[in-house]
């Protein structure tokens, strides 16, 4: 039981920090609320989809910005997509970087774009790590016989 309690606390703390530090927002709560018995892995599934999509988008972005003649429309489209999908799980820091990123695209500012790409990659990897930790804790908790409350 101790283990369970411990894990629970860890989980709670971790989740709280995610919110505190602005990695996640209310939208993530929404997802958690959608999870139910008929779909016990809903959040994990959705977040996994997000990871897949974002990995793809970030690759595309890197490629597009490496071109001799950068197609800013394309870059902008990708950023827009990234903005949309990050909003789906509440990854608000990632979403936030997309805004100046789009502005730079409009200005066709390659420097700005590259910088934003770096930033967005950074934010993305941060939130990805944190979420992966979260899921791991959840799994451990369940394995230990406990259950985790949704915030």
């Amino acid at each position: 039981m101790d283990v369970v309690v411990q894990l629970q606390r860890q989980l709670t703390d971790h989740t709280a920090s995610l919110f505190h530090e602005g990695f996640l927002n209310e939208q993530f709560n929404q997802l958690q609320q959608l999870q139910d018995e008929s779909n016990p892995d809903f959040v994990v599934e959705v977040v996994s989809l997000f990871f897949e999509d974002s990995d793809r988008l970030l690759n595309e972005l890197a490629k597009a910005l490496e071109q001799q003649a950068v197609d800013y429309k394309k870059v902008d489209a990708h950023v827009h997509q990234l903005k949309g999908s990050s909003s789906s799980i509440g990854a608000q820091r990632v979403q936030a970087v997309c805004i100046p990123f789009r502005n730079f695209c409009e200005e066709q500012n390659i420097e700005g774009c590259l910088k934003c790409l770096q930033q967005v990659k950074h934010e993305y990897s941060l939130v990805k790590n944190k979420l992966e930790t979260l899921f791991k804790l959840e799994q451990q908790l369940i394995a230990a016989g406990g259950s985790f409350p949704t915030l």
Partner: protein
Amino acid sequence: MENGFSSPRSESFPAGLRVLVVDDDPTWLKILEKMLKKCAYDVTTCHLAREALNLLRERKDGYDIVISDVNMPDMDGFKLLEHVGLEMDLPVIMMSVDGETSKVMKGVQHGACDYLLKPIRMKELRNIWQHVFRKKIHEIRDIEHENIDIIQMSRNGSDLDDGHMYCGEDFNSKKRKDFDKNDDKDFGDHSTKKHRVVWSVDLHQKFVKAVNQIGFDKVGPKKILDLMNVQWLTRENVASHLQKYRLYLSRLQKENDLKASFGGIKHSDFPPTDPAASYGHQSSINLNQNDVANGYQFCGSNFVAQDAETKNNEGDLKIVSEIKRTLTADVSDPQKMRSSQSFSHSFASLETEASYPAFDSTNPPEFSWSENPETQIKKEHKPHLQLEDGYSQLPPHGQQHQIPINQLQSDPAVTSVLSLTGRDMSGSIEIKPLFNECKSKNVSHVSPTESAIDTFPVQTKSQLINHQSFEPISTVISSMKPQGFNLSITDLESCQRNLTSASDPNFAPINEDLTVWLQGDYYSMNFGQSIDFIDYDDPGFLAEVPFYLYDPLTSDFQCPIDSTTECPIVDQGLFIA
């Protein structure tokens, strides 16, 4: 609440609402699906707009509401919105992570009933049923209004005896039943569900046909409704459909404007930037020409058939006038003489004296519209002009006279097409845009393209030059530079002489039969807008119709020409008063 909904869902509405979600983002698609399911809706997802349209078309009555993202790779969300609105008349909700006012405005303009910003909360989705319900209510109200109208009409029209009124009532109920398309509704059931009007391809075609007939600028829901003659359709249905159609057309018009001009023909110059206007002209011309119909119709139908696609805009106008007569039109198209065969081939009605105005937008090289490559020969602008007697002398068979056709210099596809419907025309006159010719001011590039000419069917019909019809043309037409027009006149005169000489008695009918299509300012400019063919003494003058030979085989030419179609041949020379 069971009001207005079919039984399966009526008990637990809004539960079971059939929602179609379209979003290319897989994460959102999954989330939305889950959310909607939680609202007890019946959800179908797809991540491609095309897929969505297919689904919608397959099951016409299979969905109640569509939710779509704005940014999608294969099709713009707004475009999907339009299609859904036009074809299926379903409420559509747009979504986007981008909440710019302009985008939201665009959504509303295209007919979205709501615009949601991502991230979307479940509570926002809970209430989407209101859009479905609202639409139903409006439809029911429409039916009721129609019914009231019907009752009133029947009362007014009847002898005011009970029998009649009763009939009126019956009619009313019957009509309502038809509207409802529900057999199990009784007369007094106002909450009868009116089936949403599904604008099938056929229905839409009827609609478009009716609009064409009336004239886009004169169109009105009631008129369309009357023409369409579809029992169960209400004026409101037509009105809303018309609105959507207009939006759709204007969007297409803009797209066309942006497209590269066909062979230099720019659409942007198309005077009626509003396709409606051009459409209107077109349709009006269509009306005029029923007998000749032809080219115009063909333009019109071309316009219509193509669903107001770019073809129209792209100078589909190929004015092909084939005059099958002994007159030979000289088409001084430097580029080439379109063989009438090809022309007739496309027009399929050589035998009928049809001169088809072939609007061939794909003949840029052929038309060297003098300096305006942008003349869009839009059929729409062609008023149907009939040439009077003086005009009848088409160039004799075997003679080719080139009639400089400069007309379409200005953008509004001024194409004067002279349609000669000559019964006895043995020759064929090819009319080509002699823009180049005009330039050269040398009308007589009479190229002995006899063979081609011969085969042109020329139909001359008794057509009076319609000054009135002229007018619209001039309005429609942007200023044309009558380049070489004057010269052409002289040339025409010479041609005319030739023609006259070669004319045979058959030409006589030409006078009456010639239909002149005037397009653009050319006529107005050169002729002072009056087609005073009548004044034209020289009968041979008619022969100087600048016949535009258009390659009827151009792909753009899509007019289904039946035997009755005629090619209006524009004779510039004719207008030399």
